[in-house]
């Protein structure tokens, strides 16, 4: 629902991170998106496409890695996947659970085309 705002944040961070004058060379932005982040990848992709529309970055695309929810039991230390969102430990039944991954919403890397070799 709020993917347009997220796309805007991504563009801002990319513009801050790429050396001056090279934003037109951005081709791929790698993101890590957790299942608990509330972001729908297809929607984000669509919004990002709208945002870059007729800007100098219009040859950039998103490369989204989905991050599953994994948890760790504070009582027995067992680490486990939490795809069904049942946050109790399958090993000891403990209820003190720490979510280790699944909340991510991060930009990992930005790929730029070489100035000389204008591929794609």
């Amino acid at each position, binding site marked *: *629902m*709020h993917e347009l*705002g*997220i796309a805007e*944040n*991504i563009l*801002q*961070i990319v513009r801050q*991170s*790429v050396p001056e004058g090279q934003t037109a060379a951005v*081709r791929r932005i790698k*993101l890590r998106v957790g299942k*608990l*982040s*509330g972001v729908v990848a297809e929607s984000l992709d669509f919004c990002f496409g709208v945002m870059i529309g007729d800007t100098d970055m219009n040859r950039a695309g998103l490369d989204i890695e989905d991050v599953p929810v994994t948890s760790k039991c504070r009582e027995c230390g067992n680490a486990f996947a939490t795809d069904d*969102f*049942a*946050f*109790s430990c399958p090993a000891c039944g403990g*209820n*003190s*659970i720490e*979510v280790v991954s699944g*909340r991510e*919403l*991060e*930009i*990992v*890397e*930005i*790929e*730029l*085309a*070489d100035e000389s070799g204008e591929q794609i």
Partner: protein
Amino acid sequence: MSVITIERKVLEKNEQIAARNRQIFQEHGIFVLNLVSSPGAGKTSILEKTFQELRDELNIAVVEGDVQTDLDAQRVARYGVPVIQIVTSGGCHLEATLVQDAVGNLDLKELDILFIENVGNLVCPANYDLGEALKVVVLSTTEGDDKPLKYPAMFLNSSVLLINKTDLIPYVNCDLNRLRNNALQINPSLRIFEISCFTGAGIPEWCNWLRKKEV
């Protein structure tokens, strides 16, 4: 091709402002609660009941978040409680910067408790830190007992669950035990209060908890 590795959080700007808000709230000793729920679950009604119980003992203020209108602010203002209305004009959640601007208009020195009533939405507000001490999720019995499983992030990120409209249990398809179990399956440390703004049931227990938290 060349690659720049950056490893930055997309919402880092929001998190920075939220951290600043949190620091300001802590410096002033204000207990800040971020109220989240779907539209119509009863956030504003709960605030009204809470004011009736606590306004003579504690200094309370409210930041209201709505997509449109200041109807909620008008309701809250009737109780003599300072209120700042944020109209998001379509935005589906509050962000830390909106709260930062809003609290700039409140006299923080006098405050004990600040309620931030988020935009009615069980999805997006889960992921935006506003600088609150904790999130309170409100779920009404008319919404059904399966909602914690359908919107897990909200229940996972909240510390308190207020189950509202318990007076309607005889008329709706909602099993209170199942609702509690579903919520605790997502977040075993949730503190749960069963309340009814219509009959007033459970409101004293909720307000007692607030008193203890505030002190």
